[in-house]
Structures are given as C-alpha cells and as structure tokens.
C-alpha cells in the first residue's frame, strides 16, 4: 500500500493545573498519496492536536508526545527530526490551513509578505520571482484582484477571502500534504461551499494529499475519500466515505449521523439525541470512551478497551459489539434499534 503518512499509536498529553489532559490516546491511521482523508469527531476529541503533531507544532512544556508514538512519512519517523529538519519540512512538504483565518494571519503584516514568507523560507528566490509566485497563488485560490490584495492587511478582507489567503499561503510552498483544520467552520454555507470546491479543485490540479478535519459530516460526505471517526482521543471507526455513511458499524458514528434532522424527510419527528456528555480527558474511562452514552453498552465496554474489528480493506471499527460472543454479530442500526 502506498501509505504516504502513517501514524502509529500516537499519544499526546497536555499538563494543566487540573491535571494531565490525555488529548490523544493511541491513535493510528494512515494517509495515502493523493487522497482526501477526513477526520471527524466532536469538539475536543483530539483532531487538532493530532494534526498539529503531524506539523510538529505541539508546544512541548504544556504538551508531551508520549514515548512510542510514531508519525512515519514515507517510512521516516518525523518525531525524531531535529528542529532544523522540522523547519524545512513545515510548509514545504506539509502545510496547514487553520480554522479561524482572522487570528491565524498576522494582523500587522501585509498579505503579500505573509504568503511570500512561505516561499522565501524554503527556496532562494529573487524578489520578482517571489512576487510573481505570490500573485499566481492568489489567483489560484480565486482572488480576482490579486495585485490589490497583496498590499492589504488581514482585517481588510472578508472571512472567505482570508480563508483563501490562508490556503494560498499553504500552497505557496508546494507541499505534498495539506492539512485543513476545520477550514470552513467559521464561514457561511455558501462560502463554505466555495472553499470546499476550491480545495477539491486544487487537489485535483496539484495532486496533493489532503487531511481534512471537521465535525460537519455533510462536508465530509462531499469531499472525502476516506474517513477517520474520532471520539475522546481515540479512533472509533475508519473506512471509505461510503462505508462510513452507509455501512457504519460504530454506535457513535451512527448517532452522529442521526443527530442532524433529515432534510429529505422534513417531518417533525423527534431527533435522535445522544444523551450525556463526552468523558473528561483528565480521567478518561478505562473501557470504551463512548460506553456511557451508548445504547448498546455492555458490561465489558465499561471495563476494557475494544479491539479492532476489520470489515474490509479500509473499514475497521473499535467496538465490542463485533465480538463473536456478543450476540450482535450482524448489526445494522435501524431507527428502532436504539432509543
């Protein structure tokens, strides 16, 4: 398999006054060249932390990447890189687009300079050359008035424009991997659609690998090849887009899909709600993290972590329900099943 990036048993903790926050607790997945991998899950489940660790952006005093974690890029463990190597890696091989473009752009620096920085950081280029490339990038992301935009400050742009600038910045270094961390959460649906289209277009054009982080399943359904579902610092299910949306195996994935009202049906029936709240990451439950809110919760779920059950090349799930002895061997979640 041509895994471009492989993450193995990633464990990351943050040390706070309240205690050790185990943000990521043994996450493994892989990204293939040229595909779009979506990571979904609700707020605080460790999506951003995972992404940051791929960029080597985890602040080390509050955070800590545990021993044994591996992030392999073409077989090379990134976590063993020196700071110098990280610097030449960031932006050039792997770039990131952040959620809130207003805070992610330096408020006192002109747009052009911020984009150019990514270029000058990695290659020796003449002034004109850099300028040309910056304009090219801005045009690529669909900014018509690229020349005018270069001289502006971030606050002078609208939200959608800023997000485009962010994308242009990320692309300027010609990265192999683009990580988009909730690139559209702060935007309206219409703009969101524009940005997502843009990403897809660019990916096609440049053949980039994209890791898309979001909690909006709608976005995922429209743009991802494969999906990783995370819950409380763990991966609960992975699979291709269709597998996740149509043949999902994990109760959490199911609940997530059902929590939104169905546009098609449009009736006023009761929504399927997941009662309770996600567990506290300071003292995470020792069993399955979702057990407490799960309608199928079994005794073992509360006590022991679930093993991985694989259903196809891409589709695997961490859930005790698929243990041969559980009595649920062939589960399809219908509306009636969980109440």
């Amino acid at each position, binding site marked *: 398999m041509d895994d471009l990036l492989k993450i193995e048993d990633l464990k990351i903790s943050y040390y706070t006054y309240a205690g050790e926050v185990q943000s990521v607790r043994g996450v493994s997945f892989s990204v293939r060249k040229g595909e779009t991998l979506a990571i979904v899950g609700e707020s605080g489940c460790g999506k951003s932390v995972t992404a*940051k660790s791929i960029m080597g*952006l985890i602040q080390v005093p509050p955070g800590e990447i545990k021993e044994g974690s591996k992030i392999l890029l073409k077989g090379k463990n990134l976590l063993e890189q020196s700071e110098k190597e990280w*610097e030449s890696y960031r932006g050039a091989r792997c*770039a990131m687009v952040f959620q809130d473009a207003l805070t992610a752009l330096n*408020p006192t*620096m002109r747009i052009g300079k911020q984009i150019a920085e990514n270029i000058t*950081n990695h290659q020796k280029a003449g002034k004109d050359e850099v300028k040309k490339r910056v304009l090219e990038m801005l045009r690529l992301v669909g900014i018509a008035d690229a020349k005018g935009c270069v001289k502006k400050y971030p*606050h002078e742009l609208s939200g959608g424009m800023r997000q485009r600038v962010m994308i242009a910045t990320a692309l300027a*270094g010609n990265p192999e991997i683009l990580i988009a961390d909730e690139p559209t959460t702060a935007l309206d649906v219409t703009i969101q659609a524009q940005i997502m289209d843009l990403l897809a277009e660019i990916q096609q054009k440049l053949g980039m690998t994209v890791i898309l982080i979001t909690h909006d399943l709608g976005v995922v359904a429209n743009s991802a090849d494969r999906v990783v579902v995370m819950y409380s610092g763990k991966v609960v299910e992975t699979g291709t887009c269709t597998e996740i949306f149509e043949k999902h195996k994990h109760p959490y994935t199911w609940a997530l899909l059902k929590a939104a009202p169905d546009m098609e049906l449009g009736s006023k029936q009761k929504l399927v709600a997941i009662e309770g709240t996600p567990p506290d990451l300071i003292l995470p439950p020792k069993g399955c993290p979702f057990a407490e809110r799960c309608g199928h919760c079994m005794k073992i779920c509360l006590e022991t972590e679930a093993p991985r059950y694989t259903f196809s090349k891409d589709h695997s799930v961490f859930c005790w329900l698929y243990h041969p002895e559980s009595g649920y061997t062939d589960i399809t979640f219908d509306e009636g099943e969980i109440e």
Partner: protein
Amino acid sequence: MRNYIIKRFLQLIPVLILVSIFSFLIIHAAPGDPIQNYVKPGMSEEQIQTIREEYGVDGNIVKQYVAWVGHVVRGDLGTSIYKNRPVTELLAEKLPATLILMGAALLISLLVSIPLGLWAGLKKNKMTDNIISFLSYFGISVPQFWLAMILIIIFALTLEILPSGGMRTVNVDTTWDLLRHLVLPAVVLSFSNTAVFTRYIRSSTISQLEEDYVLTARSKGTSRYRILTRHVLKNCLLPIITLVGINLAGLVCGSFVIESVFSWPGIGRLAMDAVNSRDYPLIMGFTMFSCTILILGNFLADILYAVADPRIKQGMGKNNG
C-alpha cells in the same frame, strides 16, 4: 484619519481647562500667602496691594482665575513671585535639562526593556525569565530616591567612576562630560519604567507567542528567530507606545525627586521651589506645562498607535468615549 486627529485634539481643550481650574483651586486653597516672601517690613498697605495686583493674587479666586486665563491665552503664564521673572522664561530656561534627562531615561528604558522583555517572554518560566522577572519586580518596587542614594554611594563614592550630581563639571563643556553626569540620574529615573516596560513586553511576548498567527508562521517553516523579529516584535511593541504615553507622568514626577537628589538643574526642582515658596504663578505654570506634556504625550501616543497599527487606522473615530 485627519478628522480623527482633529477631533481628538479638540477633546484636549476641555480637559486642559478643567485641569487648570482644578489645579487653581487646590493651589489657592493651600495655606500661606504667596507674597509673604515678598513683603518686607515697613511696607505700606498700598504697596502690598500693588504687589498683590501685580502678581494676580488679589481679589477673590474667580477673579484671579479669570485674570490668569486671560494672560495664558495670550501666552503669558504670569510672573514668578519668588523669582520675579516671567514664568514662561523660567520654564524655558530649565526645560532643556529636564528634557535631556527625561529623554535619556526614556531611551534607556526602551533600549533595555525591549530586548529583556522579549528574551524573558521567549524563555518563559526558565531561569533567565525568572531572573529578569525578579529584577523587574525589584525595579518597580524600589523607591527611586533610595536607589539614587545607593548608586551614588557605589558609583560616585566607592568606585569613583561617575560624578555624584550636577549636570556639568565646572569649566568643562563637552558632550562626554554631560553624558557622564547624565548616566546616574537617567538610570535611576528610567529604572521603574524599564521594569514596567519589561514586564509588559514579556507578557505581551508570551501572549503573542500563543497567538494563532505564530502557529501559522511556524507551519510555514519560519524559524523561531524570524518569528520573533518579523512577527512578534511589532505586535508586542504596539501597546508599548500607549504605555510610554501613560508613563510620561511618571517621568515628569520622577524628575522632581531625581533632580533634587542629583542636583540636576531642571524643571522639577524649580517646581519644588515654587511649591515651597507658594509661588502661585509658577506652580500654575508648571502644572499647566506638565499637564500639557502629559496630555499631548498621550495624544501623540494614541495617534502613533493608530498610525502604526493597521487595524486601528480603519476603525478610527469609532471610539469617541
């Protein structure tokens, strides 16, 4: 932008007027007759009255104030009772010395605090940070006059490398000599400001380093050093402009004490003399002068800040509180 400046400038006027009334009231409420140094035995009632009129200290306070304002509008701050010279002239005479001292102090504060603050912020919670923080706490806490005395003992008396006071050596008129005299008073005067600025820059460095744009810059592969100099520095320094404006007051008041301890021939000492001799016109002149400096300083700081910060320039005129 221009409208904003004009508007902001016009706002200064009522403040100045109110301050003048306020100061006038307080100063005139103080006990002691301003012209008592002036009246000598054997003077007749009329002579005394003439003198009172001459210095604008006769009649009720409203009349006095109105008369005073009338003169001020014409650029005349009155005549010092004690020194018997126009207040403007006296102030102008002492101004260079004070400005040199204040300027040097400000310069030292900035030159020292910016690198220290950045460094401490970068090494947050490490040994360097702790040492710098401790020093800056010390700087904020130490009484200036006390520090002055100690530094005089150390540098002027024990090590004998710097003069203990004054602005120039008699009969020597070189810049080098002036600088040597300037060192101690300027350092003492700058001390607390340096400390305050350092703390401020440190914490703003820390918070700026936590900003998302730093993460973005890092994700572009920008090195730490470049992030500090290209991204963080400007954002850190912007608030310092305002801080400097606010701390002008500290400089003006600090010079009172410092100039006295170091025999610096500046305006602060003139003011102390004025207070002691109830020299109303001079006190008022001084009050108005320093008040104008403060207000103008803050005004300039606001404008500068607005000019330097692209975000504010746009929303200018928005806050008219």
